[in-house]
């Protein structure tokens, strides 16, 4: 317990002073109009080899439109933090854009079953798992970064292989004189977070659960916000308590209605179970996975094009009605075969 291990599994960490300097030089309190196109935001913010994380959790409120754009632009060799992540990163793994992953949860879709493209990527060696961690540990790594601390202490997972294969270190807590785990701060190069509404400066409102999005926004070096709706300044100013992410952390803002499809945005629209079933069926073989990517992503000019392909307004309105319980919930999509 007294020997502190080497940094074999440490990724995404920086000295807090370096990040203070980074913020001083790269973030601004000026209220600038940061609206842009998704194409431009992704081209500017996501670089070959970056460490990237997405907002939301599981397959809820994820920036799927931005994921499509990354795939279309062919930005490769990405390292992903899979913090309870599902469809967003699994699409990138299927398309071959990610080559490295720090994993808390990453190779399944909960009750829908295991994610075959992500598993194929790692089992064939195309994707390397850099380290293991836990959902709480990933959250608290971003918490440390957001708080300007080198680490965050926890009593979780002590003594497990999960921590042996992570960047954390066990020390003796000087107060209890018992072992405690120090989770290293994590500063992603880029974070993309999908929110319910934002103003043009990047102030964001999120309804429902916020997962670890506040901390991620404060931790990442470059922050792209995709919003269901860009709202007038007064909407934010009239109720500052609802602002979960403040503008000064944000670098680019893009309005992307239905930007999480086929995933859920709480209180706005439901999962698209029909489309989910199509993806799950397609993901069974390499060939059909490639056909799916061609049909819906590579051959689409943008996300609006994709939204037409999945059924357009008729389907999207139905998903809104399902979320509001005005229409019955369809059969839940599951992996077949």
């Amino acid at each position, binding site marked *: 317990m007294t020997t502190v291990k080497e940094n074999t599994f440490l990724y995404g960490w920086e000295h807090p002073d370096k990040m203070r300097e980074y913020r001083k030089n790269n973030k601004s309190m000026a209220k600038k109009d940061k609206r842009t196109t998704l194409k431009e935001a992704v081209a500017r913010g996501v670089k070959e080899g970056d460490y990237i994380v997405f907002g*939301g*959790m*599981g*397959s*809820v*409120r994820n920036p799927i439109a931005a994921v499509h754009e990354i795939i279309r632009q062919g930005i490769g060799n990405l390292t992903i933090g*899979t913090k*309870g992540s599902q469809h967003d990163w699994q699409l990138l793994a299927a398309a071959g854009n990610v080559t490295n992953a720090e*994993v*808390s*949860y*990453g*190779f*399944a879709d*909960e*009750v*829908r079953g*295991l994610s075959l493209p992500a*598993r194929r990527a*790692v*089992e064939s*060696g195309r994707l390397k*798992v850099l380290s*293991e*961690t*836990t*959902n*709480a*540990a990933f*959250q608290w790594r971003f*918490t440390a970064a957001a708080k300007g601390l080198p680490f965050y202490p*926890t*009593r*979780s*997972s*002590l*003594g*497990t*292989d*999960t921590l042996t*294969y992570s960047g954390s270190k*066990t020390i003796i*807590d000087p107060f209890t004189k*018992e*072992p405690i*785990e120090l989770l290293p701060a994590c500063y992603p190069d880029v974070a993309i977070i999908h929110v319910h509404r934002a103003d043009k400066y990047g102030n964001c409102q999120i309804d*429902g*659960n*916020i*997962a*670890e999005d506040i901390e991620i926004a404060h931790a990442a070096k470059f922050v792209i916000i995709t919003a269901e709706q860009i709202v007038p300044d007064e909407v934010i100013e009239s109720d500052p308590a609802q602002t979960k992410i403040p503008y000064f952390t944000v670098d680019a803002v893009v309005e992307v209605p239905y930007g999480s499809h086929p995933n*859920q945005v*709480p209180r706005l629209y439901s*999962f698209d179970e029909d489309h989910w079933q199509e993806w799950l069926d397609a993901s069974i073989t390499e060939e059909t996975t490639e056909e799916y990517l061609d049909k819906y992503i590579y051959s689409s000019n943008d996300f609006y094009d994709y939204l037409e392909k999945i059924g357009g307004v008729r389907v999207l309105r139905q998903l809104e009605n399902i*979320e509001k*319980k005005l229409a019955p*919930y369809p*059969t*839940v999509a*599951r992996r077949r075969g």
Partner: protein
Amino acid sequence: MATETEKMIIAASRLLPEDGAVYVGTGMPLLASVLALKTHAPDLLLVYEGGGVGGKPTGRLPIQVSESLTYENGVTVGSMDYVMSLAQAGWIQYGFLGGAQIDAYGNLNTTVIGDWEHPKVRLPGSGGGADIASLCEKNIIIMRQDRRKFVEQLDFLTSPGYFTGPGEREKRGLPANTGPYRVITQIGIYGFHPETKRMTLLELFQGQTLDAVQENSSFAIDIADDWKYAEEPTEEELETLHALDRDGIVLG
């Protein structure tokens, strides 16, 4: 005749207290928890990793731990930080876990089959599993039992059970008086012997045999002196259960 899955879920449901908090995942744990809510435990507080606290979903069951149904009719909704801190601070007595492999001390593997560097099968990873296994007071493990799953030696220790015996959790710094509480399989319900912390059969499901307990495990399982047959599911439990999963997402 109730199916094996039905028996497992109903047994899990009966373990939950009238008023307490439980960390739930989607699938069998959620069905067991909502069944408890609808039968004997109306004040059971369901907590989800996505941030939902106290939701009482209607219409269908949540299929994701972060979706809006997890806090429908609920108490509050926050962040991963909030709900994981609740567990670390001792507010959440019960947790649910599953796994691809378990050993005699309730340690679990949900990470890889084979070598970590070159896995034969890549599994989901810890997710919140290691956190729940570390921080909740009493963990209920639900999984099917066979010799490949009940192993002498895990390929990877993702989530902590009792490691190698009594006092080992505390020695490593985990919160005191926590650990696996029950293991529910298609064969029976197991606890952990207070002196050895090894898995011990407490109850056998009707139609199963003591031989099946050992035949389906690669490690030796003790049989409690006062072992008994589990009480059969009631009509009310079965009806309520099926009303919760009309599409058979979990029940098949």
